[in-house]
């Protein structure tokens, strides 16, 4: 008698536990539906680009063809892009500018963030706010006065002008990210390092940079993305094809008047998207490893 009541009681508990599992499954199904939607949504343009880049110019122009099917795939656009014209030169220019800008940005913003977050000096907090405010000024407002400066320096239509200008876009934001990361490092860590015999440079190099690596990678990715994809400044300051970077090079060289060389544009844009993809994939591994390492502290 008492055994049966115990049994039914246990049964009741068991059924409740079962519904928890069901709930988890429902949540997962919805998560997958939402994810699938986003995957399709975001992959739509690149897939379309890939398909178009593999078609011959005639097939692209054929209004009766299905835009999602390639009847006669060809690598002709890729071949032409890589052998004729300035595409490779633009690619090289983009790499030079981006690598230089990322390096300059990281050096400046790490040093700035370290001093702003750790060394109390007169006006340091105002400066920290100021750094962020400069990020809020839109580049469309800036390029006219910048024109004067670049002109005055004799750097008009010169690739090196980009290396000078891009950091104005990247440094404030990266500094701001780094201030956040550095500020989250407990004060005792620098004090321990100071007592252990580190000077400020060693403290930065051996403690802050390794500990804030996820932040540094985030900032690097940001600086890379901004430099690689920047369009307005090269458009405004670079005019001759040899000086151009990918973003403007594709537009100015592959669009002649009102003839759009769609196949090459698609191929060029697709290839141009490869480096960011590689950088993300490479840094993300470290980024996530770093994130989880920080999360379990305590």
């Amino acid at each position, binding site marked *: 008698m008492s055994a049966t009541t115990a049994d039914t009681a246990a049964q009741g508990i068991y059924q409740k536990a079962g519904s928890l599992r069901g709930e988890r499954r429902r949540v997962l199904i919805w998560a997958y539906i939402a994810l699938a939607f986003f995957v399709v949504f975001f992959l739509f343009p690149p897939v379309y680009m890939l398909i178009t880049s593999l078609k011959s110019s005639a097939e692209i122009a054929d209004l009766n063809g299905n835009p999602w099917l390639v009847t006669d795939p060809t690598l002709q656009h890729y071949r032409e892009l890589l052998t004729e014209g300035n595409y490779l030169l633009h690619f090289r220019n983009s790499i030079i500018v981006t690598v230089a800008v990322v390096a300059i940005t990281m050096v400046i913003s790490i040093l700035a963030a370290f001093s702003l977050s750790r060394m109390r000096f007169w006006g340091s907090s105002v400066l920290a706010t100021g750094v962020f405010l400069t990020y809020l000024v839109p580049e469309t407002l800036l390029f006219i006065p910048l024109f004067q400066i670049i002109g005055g320096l004799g750097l008009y239509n010169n690739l090196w002008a980009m290396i000078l200008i891009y950091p104005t876009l990247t440094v404030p934001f990266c500094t701001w990210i780094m201030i956040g990361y550095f500020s989250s490092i407990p004060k005792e*860590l620098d004090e*321990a390092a100071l*007592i*252990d*015999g580190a000077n400020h440079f060693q403290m930065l190099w051996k403690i802050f940079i390794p500990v804030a690596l996820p932040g540094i990678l985030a900032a690097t990715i940001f600086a890379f993305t901004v430099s690689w994809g920047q369009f307005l400044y090269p458009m405004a300051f670079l005019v001759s094809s040899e000086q151009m970077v990918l973003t403007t090079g594709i537009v100015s060289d592959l669009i002649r008047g009102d003839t759009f060389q769609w196949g090459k544009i698609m191929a060029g844009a697709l290839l141009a998207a490869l480096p960011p993809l590689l950088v993300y994939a490479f840094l993300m591994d470290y980024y996530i490893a770093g994130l989880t390492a920080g999360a379990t*502290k305590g």
Partner: protein
Amino acid sequence: MAQVTLRKIVKEYEGGVQAVKGIDLDIADHEFVVLVGPSGCGKSTTLRMIAGLEEITGGDIAIGGTVVNDIPPRDRDIAMVFQNYALYPHMTVFENMAFGLTLRKFPKEEIKRRVDNAARILDIAPLLERKPKALSGGQRQRVAMGRAIVRDPKVFLFDEPLSNLDAKLRVQMRTEITKVHQTVKTTTVYVTHDQVEAMTLADRVVVMNHGIIEQVGPPQELYHHPATKFVAGFIGSPAMNFIPARLVNGGAALNVELADGIRLPVPEDRAARYAPHAGRDVLFGIRPEHLTELRPNDHRQHLATFQAAPEVVEPMGMETLLHFWMQGNEICARVDPSTPAAPGVQQTLAADMSQMHIIDPQTDKVL
């Protein structure tokens, strides 16, 4: 190895907060000194000034005879253990302990020898290749101590190193710290707000309150001869009972008359000391452990008995705490667990008057 000397040390934070108000302290070579006091009394500030992490507003600090006021932390040859351990999260235990030596360009073999030695003392040899996040709280604490030991500094500074640990581990690590100090004998300044920690670890305890030193002395001395009401109440657990009383001349002897009309005779050897205060209102201080049941064949002299009815009875196992009220003051007594005691039942209690204290309520000094 070195002595540490503090002369008229003042610390004023910006905003005018005086955290430390001119303290003098002499710490001998190899000595283990504990700074203890309530939260905000300036213990950490004092320690951080010794470390060089906080600028000194006034006075001099000398380590090993050299005034270090203007010497940066790295050149003071000190090591510090922090409350939250402050281990470098990206380094292994070995690297954490070796960091200070590496920066000082010690040869590799010497670093390894020292780290291995410290790891052996602290029982953390199997953990050397782990990162701090893979360690328990107690293990992190050991690594933090190891980092201090390998440096073989002139002075160890500890700022509440055990307060992040659970009660059991705290007791264990306390013993560990004593053991380490007996092995390496480095001069140590240790900050805690836990008076039990202070009593068990210290050669000498420094009781601080509101930025000044109330009393310095060996644990037993602070316990038996507190100089002020603050020290009397701070050292010992449960805390000393303070009962408003009056010193009265009753017949031949001096008596402590409690507010309830209870009269307790003052031992003869104290009579001369208290006689000038006869007739005045004072505070009568007595520790719970000196307020017991009346034992058969009790050989203690100077017992004075009185009746009281406890309101709360707390059996602790090895003893039972009785709480009763005397004119609005909560009084605690510690009796043998075999004593029959029940709330509300009158009971004879014996006060060991040889352990009593009389406090001047105006100056808070123990007379």
